[in-house]
């Protein structure tokens, strides 16, 4: 049986301590700049904060993974190199990378530190994964959320590295690392700047009838009725009209979160080494609730008990949850 490590989000030092205390096997975090894909206002770590965080986590047997998972635009690669050097100096346990140039730099400069392949690299076949393993010594791949469990099982048989899958949180619809939707409307890039629907471009408007509309850079993304649950103002969760759908519909996906709590035994059996919880942009309260629940579930499964999982639906987007592609090909 695989280790089923629990990989938990940390947007701030306090959230990191919360995740460690709640039983995370590893936490992942990033610096306060474009080098990671959650470059959100007021979030993330200064080098000094990361140093303290590494000390706190290591003292409790928890690993720290540093996300360097964006794509440096030409002329700005030094920022990513410096972030990698700083991370190595502070003793992080692994780098999570997507860009081949960044991977190559770390593999040459810091060969002692593990490389994990970010979901942002969109490696969804054994061949793609083997490419990164062969050339950069990648030790673990974070799989895109588009594969069924039988497909994951098949991939596991054909690759020389560990597998990490998302089990809870934002249900990304687009292939990560290949999405310029935000840049198209706002001028800020997910790949190059680490932003997705930046708060500076988001506006919520409350209407007389109690409904609320969300806008991104002046484009209406959705309008929630007075009694409707809301979601993030992301373009891929917006409501639009099409020639055949004049009534307006969720063209890509409705506001919903991924929750694979019921599939954990199957995922372990398929050879998944690590379970990732999404949500560096969320609060300590979310981290505490989700990590505690999954810690207990994984411990139950390891001990051969049926997992007794807390209900997490209150924390989900739109207060709805799905097993997405993991459950059925019909999701596609």
């Amino acid at each position, binding site marked *: 049986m695989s280790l089923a490590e629990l990989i938990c989000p940390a947007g*701030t030092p306090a959230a990191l301590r919360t995740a460690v205390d709640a039983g995370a096997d590893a936490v992942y975090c990033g610096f306060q700049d474009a080098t990671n894909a959650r470059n959100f206002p007021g979030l993330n770590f200064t080098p000094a904060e990361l140093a303290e965080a590494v000390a706190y986590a290591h003292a409790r047997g928890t690993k720290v993974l540093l996300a360097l998972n964006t794509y440096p635009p030409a002329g700005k690669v030094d920022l990513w190199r410096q972030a990698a050097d700083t991370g190595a100096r502070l003793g992080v346990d692994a780098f999570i990378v997507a860009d081949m140039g960044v991977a190559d730099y770390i593999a040459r400069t810091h060969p002692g530190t593990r490389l994990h392949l970010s979901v942002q690299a969109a490696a969804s076949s054994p061949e793609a994964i083997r490419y990164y393993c062969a050339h950069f010594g990648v030790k673990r791949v974070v799989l895109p959320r588009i594969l069924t469990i039988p497909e994951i099982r098949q991939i596991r048989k054909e690759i020389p590295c560990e597998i990490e899958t998302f089990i809870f949180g934002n249900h990304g619809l687009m292939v990560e690392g290949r999405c310029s939707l935000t840049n198209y409307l706002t001028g800020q890039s997910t790949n190059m700047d680490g932003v997705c629907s930046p*708060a500076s471009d988001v506006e*919520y408007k409350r209407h007389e009838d109690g409904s609320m509309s969300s806008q991104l850079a002046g484009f209406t993304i959705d309008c929630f009725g007075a009694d409707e649950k809301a979601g993030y103002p992301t373009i891929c969760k917006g409501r639009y009209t099409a020639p055949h759908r004049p009534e307006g519909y969720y063209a890509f996906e409705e506001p919903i979160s991924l929750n694979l709590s019921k599939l954990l035994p199957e995922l372990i059996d398929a050879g998944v080494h690590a379970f990732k919880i999404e949500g560096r942009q969320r*609060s300590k309260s979310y981290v505490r609730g989700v990590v505690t629940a999954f810690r207990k579930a994984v411990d139950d499964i390891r001990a051969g008990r049926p997992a007794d999982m807390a209900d997490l639906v209150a924390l989900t*987007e739109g207060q709805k949850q799905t097993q997405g592609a993991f459950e059925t090909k019909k999701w596609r």
Partner: protein
Amino acid sequence: MTLNATVSQKSPLPGRGIAERLACAVVQPVLSRVVRRIASRHSSLFARLGPHQSTDFLIDPIELPFALHLRPDPQDLVLRAVPRDAAPRAGATIRGRFMLLLELIDSEEDGDAAFFSRDLEVSGDTEAVVRLRNALDDVDGSIAEETAAMFGRPGRAILSRLRRSYIPS
């Protein structure tokens, strides 16, 4: 620090809003002490606010007789109770039940979840709200507990009674 809570920008109709203004006057000395204390104990909070240290936030607990005006500027910190009809023009407004707002400040509740469930309403500069949320979320311990502790046993008693009487809907 602005201590004068009863200065009104708009002249209210005679007889209206007197209770609100009285409530503001009563609560203001407490707020002033609270905000000074929090600021001195959690100075790292200001770095996460970045350019929004000078933003005027209106925190609007729907069931209280007044709203709170917060300007988290370390050089000129403002937290004052304001009658709703005299509230300043805010860069960002955060509206919800008082107990929910308190729990958000203390990270007992998740802000995104409260937003998804529509219990929390946000308007104005969204980035300002996100920064404030992230800054407060990085504060260890409970700001509510700290505040209550400032008033000794009576303070703690009031907080725990408030919590007991609060039934999430």
